[in-house]
């Protein structure tokens, strides 16, 4: 049951992201890409974003036992 709740939490966030992106393309908000562009204008945030993304790649593709 707890697994179901956790998966439901991820699903709600993912569905909200899709809904927000659709609303953004109609002009209500910034699209995800635009939001990243606005955030990345500040150099420290840009460096943090890229460093975090590189860490995520390392975490997914290296720090895992595929068995």
């Amino acid at each position, binding site marked *: 049951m707890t697994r179901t709740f*956790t998966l439901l939490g*991820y699903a709600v966030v993912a569905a909200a992201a899709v809904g927000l992106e659709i609303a953004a393309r109609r002009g209500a908000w910034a699209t995800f890409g635009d939001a990243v562009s*606005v955030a990345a204008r500040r150099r420290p945030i840009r460096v943090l974003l*890229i460093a975090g993304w*590189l860490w995520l790649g390392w975490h*997914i593709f*290296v720090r*895992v*036992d*595929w068995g």
Partner: protein
Amino acid sequence: MHDHERVGDGPVDLGATATRGAAGRLSARWAAPALAACGYGWWAVGLAPFSLAASLAVVLAGGAAAVLGSRARRRATLPADRRRIVPWLVLIAAGGAVQLAAYLQHPRVDHPTLSSLTNALLDSHAARAAAFVAWLVATAELARR
């Protein structure tokens, strides 16, 4: 066929040929790098997990993609209205809260993190290689912004 039909067809054919030519040149320009990235991805995700070689293969390729993306950086054209990005910040915080709640609890099978779900999805070598190439492309795109 009437003459007026031939006259009408001519420019369309030329235009289509030019478009096909441009598309062909574009494809040829990207075909080799795309193939190289796929080959590299296939090799990189086959390296031993937790090894220095795997770490270098991933981080160096990601760094190279970031540098390439930075060189082609877009000029800022968007209005810097930060209020328009607030919903995304709220959503990222919500996703982070779900992830953190799962991470702090055990067993993992009952409280899956995004990492554990991703590992399950990337079970095959081909899926891992495809995800790695997608990650490289996303890295370059992120650096371009």
